[in-house]
């Protein structure tokens, strides 16, 4: 071996920043997400040239310009389909998709669900801010009912999507939720997304301070976060509350919140099992409006993880088998076919 090889210095977050001026509004939740991604990337042990970030259109989709990796800022809704083609042909690349609630669930909703069912080994980061930011403030497919926006002066009559439930419905093999305001948790979820073999769907609650400020405040602010959220940890009971004195139980298929006391202790709680699809479905449906009196806390963390073969691997396998059985294709044989005749 050559002794001139120097081990490259480990990369840092700085190595992933570009010379492009970041153009999100000051205070936008996207800044935090970018910072966490830049922090996490060097820890994943992937050569920088093997990372590709593909986005669609929307505020979040500017993301690739700020990451010093390979990147494509494509067209509205299609990042998932572009990523599918790239991953199908270059399985060794680490492919990340940046999309939003409009990009990934409205105009590109079709590609999102099909990518999930095919289970390409890529990572979807869906920045959900429940609004159209780039087009200046129309309601999105995740906006709550009755929301007054530029395009719904009398309140929205659209029923919103529940992204985690949608992803589970499309047979996603990894479904998680995090938030811009919890850097540590977000980093952890990014690492888990990357570690998952298969399509990972990570919904990130992101504050658009210009058009939908405070949409997730109740989950992110210190004063209410503990009582309004439950952080999922595999093998651990579902405990929440500022005093860590509340938890979730299953009453049949119905999740109920209980307080510890005479009747229940931490031992009686629902223990989170990431690999249980049915329980993950119930968790994904804990989607109550936190402003209503009787409501359950909103789950964050990994709802579900399972394993099945990835599209790109199956594709490569079929090609490998065909070559094994028939030998590498011979162009002359193909062109000649089975039946020929000669004209002298």
């Amino acid at each position, binding site marked *: 071996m050559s002794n001139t090889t120097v081990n490259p210095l480990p990369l840092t977050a700085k190595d992933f920043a*570009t010379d*492009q001026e970041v153009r999100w509004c000051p205070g936008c939740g996207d800044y935090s997400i970018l910072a966490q991604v830049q922090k996490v990337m060097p820890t994943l042990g992937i*050569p*920088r*040239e*093997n990372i*590709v970030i*593909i986005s669609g*259109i929307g505020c979040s989709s500017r993301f*690739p*310009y700020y*990451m*010093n*990796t*390979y*990147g*494509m*800022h*494509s*067209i509205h809704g*299609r990042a998932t*389909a*572009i*990523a*599918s*083609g*790239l*991953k*199908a*042909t*270059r399985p*060794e*690349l680490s492919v990340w998709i940046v999309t939003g609630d409009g990009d990934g669930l409205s105009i590109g909703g*079709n*590609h999102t669900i*099909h990518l999930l069912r095919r289970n390409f080994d890529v990572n979807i980061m869906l920045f959900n801010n429940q609004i159209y930011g780039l087009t200046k403030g129309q309601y999105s497919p995740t906006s709550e009912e009755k929301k007054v926006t530029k395009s719904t002066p009398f309140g929205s009559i659209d029923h919103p999507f529940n992204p985690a439930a949608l992803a589970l419905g499309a047979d996603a093999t990894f479904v998680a939720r995090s938030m811009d305001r919890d850097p540590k948790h977000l980093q952890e979820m990014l690492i888990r997304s990357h570690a998952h073999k298969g399509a990972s769907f990570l919904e990130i609650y992101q504050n658009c301070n210009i058009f939908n400020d405070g949409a997730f405040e109740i989950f992110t602010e210190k004063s209410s976060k503990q009582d309004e959220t439950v952080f999922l940890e595999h093998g651990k009971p579902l405990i929440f509350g500022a005093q860590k004195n509340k938890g979730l139980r299953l009453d049949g298929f119905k999740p109920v919140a209980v307080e510890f006391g005479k009747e229940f202790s931490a031992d009686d709680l629902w223990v989170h099992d990431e690999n249980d699809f049915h329980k993950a479905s119930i968790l994904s449906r804990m989607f109550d409006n936190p402003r209503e009196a009787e409501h359950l806390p909103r789950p964050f963390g990994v709802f579900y993880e399972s394993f099945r073969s990835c599209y790109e691997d199956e*594709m490569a396998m*079929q*090609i490998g*088998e*065909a*070559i094994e*059985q*028939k*030998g*590498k*294709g011979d*162009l*002359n044989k*193909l*062109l*000649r*076919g089975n*039946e*020929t*005749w*000669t*004209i*002298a």
Partner: protein
Amino acid sequence: MFNSTNPMTRHAEILNDVVIKFAGDSGEGMQLTGSQFTNNTALLGIDLATFPDFPAEIRAPQGTLPGVSGYQLRFSSDMVFTPGEECDVLVAMNAAALKVNLKSLKKGGKIIANTDGFDSKNLRLANFPEGVNPLDDGSLGNYEVIRMDITKMTREALKEISLGTKEKDRAKNMFVLGFLYWMYNRDMASTVQFLKDKFGKKPEIFESNMKALQAGYNYGDTTETFTTTYKVEKAKMHPGVYRSIMGNQALAYGLIAASQKSGLPLFLGSYPITPASDILHELSRYKSFGVRTFQAEDEIAGITAAIGAAYGGSLAVTTTSGPGLALKAESMGLAVMLEIPLLIVDVQRGGPSTGLPTKTEQSDLLQAYYGRNGECPMPVIAASTPSDCFDAVYEAARISVQHMTPVIFLSDGYIANGAEPWRFPNANDLQEITVNFKAGLNPDEEKFLPYLRDEKLARPWAIPGTPGLEHRIGGLEKQNVTGNVNYEPENHQLMVKLRQEKVDRIADHIPEQKLDSGPTKGKVLVLGWGSTYGAIKSAVAELKEEGHAISHAHIRYLRPFPANLGAILRNFEQVLVPEINNGQLIRLIRDLYLVDAKGYHKIMGIPITKTELVAELRRYL
């Protein structure tokens, strides 16, 4: 086993040119019968052209007029360039098939009528008035009617086979095929082999087809009423080894060849659509060539997945027809902006909207030229015959990867499903396609500049996985050279002009336009593109034979046009542009070269015929 027992008693008449139309219910296997007879003909070195005519519905109600499926085959000891106009022989499996096709039968032509298909039910379904049977009422006096109860005779031949009547009746088409093989003095080995390959694992089906085939042959051979058989001699074609090929198949082979010669793995992203789906079917079979086919969730995913694959370094293709091309428009714009290689294949059909899915038309040329937002130039290349799909798509691939641009390739339903003999090339003789990915930063480069161009104005193809070339591209306007997002007015103007100039410069890298036939200057030039090739060639040949000075040029490179096209046009007093649309190439020609070209437009979902064109051309001579 399959030879005639007493061939000497029959007189074999030598014919020069024959057109047969096989027509029956869409479930009766007429396409298969036609293609089997075609193959058999091709193997004898007889030249041929075919024209399958499918109903729009998969299975329209049995016995009805819309349910008729046809397959026209012309074969000749001369070279032929069209599937012919009037038929010499019409195989009518039922009354509807007769009704739909009678108008295209020559006076004095033969009708092979399956009498069972003319029972009262079939007559009613074919809208014949109560009590009228064309086989009996003397209305076919101008034709030679050969009545055969094909259904009955097939059942009879299969009486020892334990299949149900429905299954047995499926072999009717083989009876007809056997009869025609006898009639045209053929050896049936090619079909026997086909049946073996297809039904080898289903012995009963295999046997029933074989028996029906043989019974049809024997019927001709032993029935005294048929006194004459026919023979068409080998055609005088260029010496060489030939095979039979269909348009979509040739297209698929051309893509595989381009992949092999360029060393780029082939990726197809496609959504099923008539008449392009066969390319997807064909390519999905060739995994041993490393071909990756991706049946996408929609047209847009088909092209955008291909964009992803191209970005990763594949020879990426998407295939579609007119409505799909419309859906792909925005994505094509992205590919133009990204300046990456990509092939968009449009097998045209009648439009607008869903239009005429199974009929042919050349009406997407202007869509290919202009159908995108913004100034969005892309090269356009068109095939003119089934086998030409191979060469033309190979060229499209070459241009795409060497000039770093998406390319639109136009075929149409007529070319896609038509078959013809093909003097296939040797892989070694195909033009090399050299592709160089950018391997890393050059010693004098500090930073990668993704939009730094070469003399062709092509930018480097830098694929993910290459250290040092990490860069971002996208659909927003690019700054010249750096590729950074840029909204400056001067830069936008420059970039629009550069993208146009890049496409224009391709004219320096394609062959000059040649005349297909005729003098280089003179009175009339017939200018065509795409599938009108055969009709124009035949019409011009006929008029030349009569002593007229008339020339024919057929354009493969539609954007940019070959550099000398303008000069050619100026050498003629009249330029006539026949098209299967309402006038598209003609607009481009008039716009670009200011020539007072005249159009001839047939928009009926069927090809222009030689006779129509000869009549039209006479007006200019």
